[in-house]
């Protein structure tokens, strides 16, 4: 039953498995479902396990079940609407006149005809049934004799609910806010035993007690705490201006995450040379050499930048965009040193991956595993940072 729906969901990237599908079949075979609306919620509760996929589900549902709602069902709604004189009173006099110019049956016939002809959802325009048009059918239209179908009514149908796509904002490939970034960063943890000994070590206690001929000897151990140290290097200014909001969100999330053992951040412009900076205005410099000395290789390095610059900025001596940097070594040498120094590093690129075929972006990508600065990308990057090497 509905097997194609399963594949429609899969195609829409909803992670459904056979287990869940079998559960749905079990529920259906118990025979509690009497209509499409109930099916919509039942299937959603069983198949979709995160609000992030509710929207994908809505899209798939719409696609698969389109056309199940028969025209006659809708004309019944319209008939009901027409039967109620109160509804007609909401029209102005002019509208009334226009309304009367059209025969009811004519209106209905026309509607049914058009519903049959129409195969896609339609917004705008003057003929098809849809929204925002001047056709007499559909909602939010301008035709005074028009009939609102769906729209704000309370008794909504499953397809209409799906069409509303109210969960669009929960998709995690689109939106990023500080809380979400924080959750993603929570993945950056490696538990190890540090701090004072405040946890009873049972095994050791038993052993020690036994050795002590039954005289109880309590043994303690350190509790597990997160040992992850993070270094954040961010590209600021220039082409990064357009991503300023996104980057500042990432920064505040990382900065307010309390679970890191240590967190440092520095800024650079376009590429890293002899110095990195402690402030966005790039006044307080510290030498990159020094940075590599004080940062142990086990710091998890997050680089944020679009890696988009003139090839000379990356490849040439004295190539820095600020001439006063006088970099003796080209940027690429510094980047390589950094990539080799830290055992775990990733590059987060706020730019759309479609534009990554730029020379310098590709060269940077060869040195650092690069991920888009979206929730998915960040998640992947974080996983990359905690793999054991």
């Amino acid at each position, binding site marked *: 039953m509905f097997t194609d729906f399963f594949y429609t969901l899969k195609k829409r990237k909803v*992670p459904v*498995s056979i*287990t*869940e599908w079998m*559960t749905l079949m*079990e*529920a259906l075979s*118990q*025979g*509690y479902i009497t209509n499409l609306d*109930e099916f919509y*919620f*039942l299937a*959603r*509760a*069983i198949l*979709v*396990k*995160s*609000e992030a996929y*509710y929207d994908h589900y809505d899209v798939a549902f719409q696609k698969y079940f389109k056309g199940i709602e028969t025209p006659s069902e809708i004309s019944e709604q319209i008939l009901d609407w027409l039967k109620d004189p109160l509804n007609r009173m909401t029209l102005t006099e002019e509208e009334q006149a226009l309304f009367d110019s059209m025969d009811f049956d004519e209106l209905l016939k026309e509607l049914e005809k058009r519903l049959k002809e129409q195969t896609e959802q339609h917004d705008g325009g003057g003929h098809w049934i849809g929204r925002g048009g001047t056709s007499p059918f559909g909602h939010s239209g301008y035709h005074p004799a028009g009939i609102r179908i769906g729209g704000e009514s309370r008794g909504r149908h499953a397809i209409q609910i799906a069409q509303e796509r*109210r969960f669009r904002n*929960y998709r995690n490939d689109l939106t990023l806010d500080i809380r979400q970034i924080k*959750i993603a960063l*929570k*993945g950056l943890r490696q538990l190890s035993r540090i701090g004072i000994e405040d946890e*009873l070590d*049972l095994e050791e*206690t*038993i052993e020690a*007690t036994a050795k002590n001929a*039954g*005289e*109880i000897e309590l043994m303690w151990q350190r509790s597990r705490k997160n040992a992850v140290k993070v270094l954040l290097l961010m590209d600021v200014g220039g082409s990064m201006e357009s991503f300023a909001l996104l980057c500042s969100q990432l920064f505040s999330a990382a900065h307010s995450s309390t679970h890191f053992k240590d967190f440092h951040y520095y800024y650079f412009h376009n590429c890293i040379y002899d110095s990195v900076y402690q402030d966005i205005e790039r006044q307080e410099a510290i030498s990159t050499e020094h940075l590599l000395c004080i940062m142990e290789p086990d710091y998890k390095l997050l680089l944020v930048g679009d890696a988009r610059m003139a090839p000379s900025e990356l490849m040439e001596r004295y190539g820095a965009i600020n001439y006063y940097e006088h970099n003796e070594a080209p940027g690429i040498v510094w980047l390589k040193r950094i990539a080799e120094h830290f055992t775990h590093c990733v590059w987060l690129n706020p730019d759309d991956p479609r534009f990554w075929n730029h020379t310098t972006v590709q060269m940077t990508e060869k040195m650092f595993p690069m991920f888009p600065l979206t929730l998915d990308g960040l998640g992947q990057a974080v996983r990359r940072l905690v793999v054991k090497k």
Partner: protein
Amino acid sequence: MASSNGFDQFKGSSDYVTSEPLRNAVNVAIALERPLLIRGEPGTGKTLLSHSIARGLVKKLITWNIKSTTKAQEGLYVYDTVQRLNDSRFGDRDVSDIKHYIKLGKLGQAFASPEQVVLLIDEVDKADIEFPNDLLNELDEMSFYITETDESIRAVHRPVTVITSNAEKELPDAFLRRCIFHYIEFPDTELMEEIIRVHFPDIKNNLLHEALKTFYKLREMDDFRKKPSTSELIDWIRALVAGGIPHENISKEIPFIGTLLKKETDYDYFMARTGGKSQGRRRDLYGMLY
């Protein structure tokens, strides 16, 4: 295995208003005997749902609050070795019977209960990432094995299991596959009105509408660290009713704003946005921003 009273068991209770999709999800979970995983914004009544289910179905509720240090084993049973060791030293209890030192955890109690119970596993995402996986088999089979006594505890009646999560951590896929999932949306105005009326049966219409209007306007402001939620709204209305505030004043000055905005920064931000009185420097700062 279909039973006649299958699908419409849970109808909400007099003090907890549910939406239809949520009721459906609960009933599916009960009928299929799967755990129900509930997610949603803080303050949308995730925890209260299980209380309502317990009341609605007239069953006992067992709550297992998860903390960051909670381990799966604790929910099943704990073998109190230290106590036994201690007793053996002083010899004031019979230590030969290990059963005295096996204490059932919340999950164990739910299984062992002679009648069906509602089991709430609250904030499952607080615990270690592996925690849900450790419970997979137990929740699936509804049974576990006590090594020390060579006994199996099998659920007499499978408990109605409700699991809540704040999505702080991702839950493992294998765990998710076995659950029924529902995301509690923030209630719309109509549902909210119903909810408020449950708590304040004789609230005046004017007051309610003004309060709701103001409340949803506040929620539309995107920049709050913590948006006011249902529980805060209820507190606020309680304060309004107790204070006898005339409804015309509500939207103008928002009395008792402290019950709605819990963070100092939110409060300052709000004051700056609305031109209210706030102390000195910080206000200027926000004034510069907007």
